[in-house]
């Protein structure tokens, strides 16, 4: 178990792929915003890739371990330290009872760090997942972000802890982080020519959109669309007065790009499952993790045209990374 000393900006229990099968009841999938970093964190400590770990957004998390353990820290470089001694990222680390893990704030690139623990974080499954849905207040640890004093038990590791320490990822499989995140996306459901002009779609697929501070696990708000003839309609017809309005419909979640007025909003893992705004494109599942590493107010998102065939192939290729062959 670990006891939280400082919960940081926003630290959550998340697994992958989250809570599937309930979109029709209005329940978001939740899950790790950067599932690649979580899955590598789990691989390093000998867990199944989708096991629950800790997602640290922004930083400043600190905890004391109440048992011997093996952990890993992946994602953004928050300068992790054990008992004030720097420890490497993307490696498994042996922890002794009483050790204190401390993270600083997010690094030059990317925003979220992940802590994997051998055996996983032992919170109850709720509807098939250990993930916290922050905006639904369910799942994870009591349906909320962690607080000082919380005690999180660990599951039983399937391997001996001593055999898990010192495992390293190969350098070539460690994701590259960027200031401008390229997200492959497929047009639709509301696109050219009925809802958006061709010029508008070109704009969506060429412009680098700044990520706004008002982004969170529900949605990533991007800078406004301007200086372009974007909408193909004068108004939203029966859906409303603005051309971004449509009659309420289900969203292709997660990863749909809502157009709310003139603001593109990328709906992510805790996001809504339906609504009355048009969705101009959908980010492919394989690339959605990148937005979770986008630094609000600093980074940019750029959409790259893709196809369903490419999306399927990319998912298979990415899934193959989370195996022992990715370790040194």
């Amino acid at each position, binding site marked *: 178990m670990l006891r939280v000393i400082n919960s940081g900006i926003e630290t959550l229990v998340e697994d992958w792929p989250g809570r599937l099968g309930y979109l029709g009841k209005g329940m978001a999938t939740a899950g790790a915003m950067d599932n690649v970093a979580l899955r590598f964190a789990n691989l390093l400590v000998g867990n199944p890739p989708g096991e629950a770990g800790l997602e640290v957004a922004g930083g*400043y998390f600190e905890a004391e371990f109440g048992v011997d353990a093996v952990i890993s820290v992946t994602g953004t470089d928050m300068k992790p330290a054990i008992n004030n001694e720097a420890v490497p990222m993307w490696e498994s680390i042996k922890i002794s009872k009483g050790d204190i893990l401390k993270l600083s704030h*997010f690094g030059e690139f990317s925003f979220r760090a992940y802590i994997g623990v051998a055996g996983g974080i032992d919170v109850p499954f709720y509807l098939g997942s250990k993930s916290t849905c922050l905006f639904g207040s369910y799942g994870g640890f009591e349906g909320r972000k962690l607080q000082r004093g919380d005690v999180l038990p660990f599951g039983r590791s399937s391997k001996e802890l001593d055999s898990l320490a010192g495992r390293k990822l190969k350098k070539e499989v460690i994701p590259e982080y960027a200031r401008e995140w390229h997200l492959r996306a497929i047009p639709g459901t509301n696109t050219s020519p009925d809802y958006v002009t061709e010029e508008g779609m070109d704009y969506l697929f060429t412009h680098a959109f700044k990520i706004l501070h008002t982004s969170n696990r529900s949605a990533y708000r991007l800078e406004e669309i301007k200086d372009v003839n974007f909408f193909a309609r004068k108004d939203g017809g029966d859906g409303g007065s603005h051309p971004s309005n449509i009659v309420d419909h289900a969203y292709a979640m997660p990863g749909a790009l809502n157009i709310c007025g003139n603001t593109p909003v990328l709906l992510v893992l805790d996001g809504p499952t339906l609504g009355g705004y048009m969705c101009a494109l959908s980010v492919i599942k394989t690339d959605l993790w990148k937005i979770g590493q986008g630094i609000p107010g600093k980074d940019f998102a750029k959409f790259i045209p893709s196809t369903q065939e490419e999306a399927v192939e990319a998912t298979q290729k990415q899934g193959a990374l989370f195996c022992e062959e990715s370790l040194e």
Partner: protein
Amino acid sequence: MEATINAHMPGLVARVVAIEGEQIAKGQTVAVINCMKNELAVISEYEGKVKQVLVKEWDEMDVGSPMIILDLGEVK
């Protein structure tokens, strides 16, 4: 002796709580930053008198942006 209180997160200044000339205790909230639609308190690590407030509401902060200068020499 002076100390600067810096932003610990990127975001927009939601409120400035401290005012110039005010005596600040260690652990006191001096400002609030809005990030990820959360209000994050900026806490003083020092005890001292507010010499200068460098920010106002809606100013954009990055990690490390200076927000408030404290005069530590006037601690009573």
